[in-house]
């Protein structure tokens, strides 16, 4: 089943064609990779899908419905989660608080219940706290529950960001350079998590520089260069594609 579909997506900044007619699909239940040299438009593409940037033309569809003009928060509420290239945690908040905000789009308490502190609102908060703690346990972060997120080591911050992104069981997970700066062991472990998430039904799109990581993890890889897709195939085929090699060497 196709979760996310891009159709002829373009984004121009004045004369610069950052994304120039990109079309591909991100199916549910699989990990899809998107690679490309620096400046190829990967980040722009993520921002176009996530609702941060507007499309010059083209469509982005989620489960068949167009989301091309929806704001970032609306896109998120539909079940598209993303991580950021530079980790953006809420620095003042504790690890648990950071994870709990990941549940935001699931919360059902009405305005009135929240304002008046009605039992339904309190109960939901309690339940979410428990779910947050469970998530922390699965990621081996229980000990850091009360630690302010800003003070954690880089690897741990990545974990918190991951927990936050998957907390609400999104349909689509956009990972923007998730293993940057990690060693092979750490990256491999994280990759295992992505694979499990896909097995559970999520549509995972990994935008990465680390081509080996992508090759080990993804079933299908798309290659972006200067705003256009120049290849899409299995990782093995893509790595052998002369156009891809040229694009990477040329930078």
């Amino acid at each position, binding site marked *: 089943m196709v*979760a996310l579909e891009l159709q002829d997506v373009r984004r121009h900044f004045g004369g610069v064609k950052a994304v120039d007619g990109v079309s591909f699909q991100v199916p549910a239940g699989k990990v899809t990779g998107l690679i490309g040299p620096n400046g190829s438009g990967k980040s722009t593409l993520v921002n176009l899908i*996530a609702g941060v940037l507007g499309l010059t033309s083209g469509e982005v569809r989620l489960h068949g419905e167009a989301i091309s003009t929806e*704001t*970032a*928060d*609306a896109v*998120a509420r539909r*079940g598209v*989660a*993303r991580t*950021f290239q530079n980790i*953006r*945690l*809420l*620095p*003042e*908040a*504790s690890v648990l608080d950071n994870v709990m*905000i*990941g549940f*935001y*789009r*699931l*919360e059902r*308490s009405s*305005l009135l*219940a*929240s*304002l*008046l*502190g009605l039992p339904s*609102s*309190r109960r*939901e*908060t309690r339940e979410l706290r428990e779910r947050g703690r469970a*998530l922390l346990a*699965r*990621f*081996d972060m229980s*000990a*850091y529950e*009360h*630690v*302010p997120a800003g003070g954690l080591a880089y*690897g*741990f911050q990545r*974990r918190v960001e991951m927990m*936050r992104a998957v907390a*609400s*069981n*999104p*349909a689509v997970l956009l990972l923007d350079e998730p293993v940057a700066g990690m060693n092979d062991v*750490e990256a491999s*472990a*994280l990759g295992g*998590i992505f694979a*499990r998430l896909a097995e*559970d*039904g*999520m549509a995972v799109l990994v935008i990465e520089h680390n081509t080996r990581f992508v090759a080990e993890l993804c079933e299908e890889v798309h290659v972006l260069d200067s705003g256009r897709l120049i290849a899409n195939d299995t990782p093995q085929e893509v790595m052998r594609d002369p156009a891809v090699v040229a694009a990477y060497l040329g930078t």
Partner: protein
Amino acid sequence: MIDFLKANQPVFDFFLLTLGFAYSQQIVLRCGVFSLASAAFAALGAYCCAILVVNLGLPPLMAIPLGAVLGGAAGYLVSVPLARLRGVYQAIATLALVEVVVAITLYAEPLTGGAVGFNNIPKHVGTVEIALAVAVVIYLLHALSISRIGRGFDALRQDEYVAASLGVSSRGQHTLAFIVSGLIGGLFGGLQSMYAYSVEPHQYGFSFMVTTLAAIILGGRRSLLGPVIGSAVVILLPEISRPLAEYRMVVVGVVMVLVVLYTPQGLGDTFLSWLSHRRASKQAPPPAKPLAADARTTKSKGDTYGRA
């Protein structure tokens, strides 16, 4: 002892009123909106109440809530144009708004009494009523803080883009914050007019803005304890340093500078985060374990992928 309390009651009352205004100021800052409009909401509430009670003979029990509602409506109206601004620009826009309100209250003499102010308002409100109002506001704000709205506000304040990526609508939440700020500001403006016998335009001008903002920054932008401490500092400090006679405001200024330099997050917030740091360090984290490769997130009951 009773004499001491009786003698200082006006100061305490003023402290409570300032606390109310401080909460009105804080709720918008809490969600990342740099609005100084509380002064305008207070002015609207105060004059509305005075006019309704004195000119139209409404009972205060009706007039005060109406003042609050007027403040809330103004908050909603203000939120619309201010949605496109951020940071300092919001601050200046709301400052302009406050000055417009001051100028209008000066100008609309037949209605408001002009520069002389609205005088001879019978006193309907005392310490008990104000304290009650403060207690109610604290309860409501506390409930808000621990709810999803409070979480959304905190996220918006710290990083608007991250909050958006998690589904928090800045437009909606900012509007909510403005409305709540307006309701609280209007409420305490109304209470003040029913307490202080008179209202005058400059009461809710630049000085008011400066005082409430200082109370929040000194006490803390995040916690509910913050405004309590901040208001206490701003109101009580001049009283305590009264023996220093004409230099007491100099002392206030010096204390403000020192507090900010050493506790930039505010006395209240700094204290509370010190407490939670102690709690966190007591559970000293064990050495780092590599991430278990099959850590899953399993679906919880009731969740579905996609639209939740």
